[in-house]
């Protein structure tokens, strides 16, 4: 990189000798001084806690049992042997794949429907993206209210639709509770897919479609042979971002189901929260979060590296 002329060639007028030295120093190490505050904060609140928790992994750190004795791999074994931990992990994977798939299909359909300009498009856009600006806690709470039995409007509206009274226990029964979670998540995050895919669609050169039309190629074929390949990098990006957020699913579970009925809707994050902050087995929860982190890091490495390649291209 080009290092430009150091500023001490032309000192600011009136600067004393020591302040000139300081400013010369600041100018020489400028690029490092600029990243220092942010980097220190990240080090202090991410790297240091992670290192600290590395130690917590191997000792007893429990608000119910005093002392920090070395326990070896005991904490990890506790998590691995807990059937609830593995079922929470499986549920997390299944739920995130489900919601991301649905959000992708709906988002793509919406983006295709919105790609042409029309009157009132601005207002329609604003309405479509509103859920993105709402706290997930409120989303969970709103759906809990909406799906309430027997006085929530969801069962009533469904009843009107099918012509006889409907009485679904949305948050009290499997499989309805999973459907309720998926609905709430899809409600909040489909706009995310939509916005990104729409930007991707709008960037596809129009002449490709004009050429296809001249050749008399039909809508579906244009979609398969022009739209999808052109959109592929954006699809990767949207899926990566969404998937890595979906696996953190916590807020909606917390408000909508509380993990229930029983432990049917424990996700990885909710499980770790329960172990750590409701039962106060902090070292076990820490070991569990390290397992989760390691599993996730593999996915992050693969997906984000690919993203950087896409972006560099």
């Amino acid at each position, binding site marked *: 990189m080009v290092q*430009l002329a150091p500023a001490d060639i032309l000192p600011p007028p009136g600067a004393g000798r020591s302040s000139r030295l300081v400013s010369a120093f600041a100018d020489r190490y400028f690029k490092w001084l600029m990243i220092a505050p942010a980097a220190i904060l990240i080090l202090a609140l991410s790297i240091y806690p992670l290192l600290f928790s590395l130690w917590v992994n191997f000792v007893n750190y429990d608000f119910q049992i005093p002392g920090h004795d070395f326990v070896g791999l005991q904490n990890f074994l506790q998590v691995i042997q807990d059937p609830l931990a593995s079922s929470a992990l499986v549920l997390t994977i299944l739920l995130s794949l489900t919601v991301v798939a649905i959000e992708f299909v709906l988002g793509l359909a919406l983006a295709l429907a919105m790609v042409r300009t029309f009157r009132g498009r601005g207002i329609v856009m604003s309405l479509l993206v509103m859920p993105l*600006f709402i706290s997930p806690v409120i989303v969970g709470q709103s759906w809990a209210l909406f799906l309430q039995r027997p006085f929530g409007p969801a069962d009533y509206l469904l009843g009107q639709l099918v012509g006889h009274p409907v009485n679904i226990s949305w948050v009290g029964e499997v499989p309805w509770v999973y459907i309720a979670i998926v609905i709430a998540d899809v409600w909040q995050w489909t*706009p995310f897919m939509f916005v990104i895919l729409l930007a991707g669609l709008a960037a596809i050169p129009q002449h490709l479609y004009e050429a296809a039309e001249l050749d008399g190629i039909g809508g579906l074929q244009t979609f398969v042979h022009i739209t999808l390949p052109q959109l592929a990098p954006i699809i990767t990006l949207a899926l990566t971002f969404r998937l890595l957020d979906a696996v953190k699913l916590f807020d909606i579970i917390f408000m909508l189901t509380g993990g229930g009925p029983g432990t049917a809707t424990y996700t990885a994050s909710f499980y770790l929260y329960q172990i750590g902050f409701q039962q106060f087995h902090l070292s076990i929860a*820490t070991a569990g979060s390290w397992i989760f982190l390691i599993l996730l890091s593999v996915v992050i490495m693969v997906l984000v590296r690919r993203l950087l390649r896409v972006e560099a291209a």
Partner: protein
Amino acid sequence: MKARLTPWKLGTRRLREGAVRIVIVGLFIMFVLVPLYWVIVTSIKPSKDYLTVPPVWFPAEPTLVHYTAALFSYRGLQGLINSLIISSAATLLSAVLGTMMAYSLARFRTGGQHLAFWVLSQRFLPPVAIVLPIFLLFRGWGLYDTHIGLILAYTFMTLPLSVWMMYAYFRQLPKSLEDAALVDGLSHWQAFRLVAVPLAAPGIAAAAVFIFISVWTEFFFALILTSRYAFTLPTIFRAFLGFQGAQYGEACALATTSLVPSIVLGMLVQRHLVRGLTLGALRG
């Protein structure tokens, strides 16, 4: 190759496509609006309208009584004030520190791709993995349940957003003006402060709004790192878990209080939404 479409066939196809578009968008808008409408209308319903079949969509006697109850009996007002203080301070800090780092990354390629990647990777860390040790450390440092503690946590949480949004922004700004300033004898800091920052001001403003919204709506960190003093608006919703006391109106009043400001802010930066959602990786 298929036979060419006659103008007539093309016309009906357009019509059909148009109808499909309207149906898709229309249905989704209803899906978005109906629950939102329900929350807002419940916040102004008198309590006797809660438990009725069919549900009351248009209350005959709207009331603001739930707002006063939510703000004063559920400590909503303090949550609101805390949220405002914490979100504003974290936004300011994150925008300043993020812009500085982004400038260094964009103009000097400091640390190469690794440093930039490291910052980005923080964005994908599951909060549950770091909030546990942060909780333990904050208790030791006396930062647990303090405004400062949560401000620092949120600044950290939003740094990937501010760094990457501003990184993308600086890379598309021409460097020539800063170079000219350096030739004129300004220091690097002066070139940054007096030339680059004013040029990047619109980008910084957009990034700041996104930071504010993500802090304003955050729940998990606030849930773990605060209790009765520095709690934010979203954490109050715990009081309504399961609706045992049937506090529908209060819950909805609080929800409305929280969602209206962030939606309004969101509308202001809608133009930048794609950059905000993808941390600047994609331009809208």
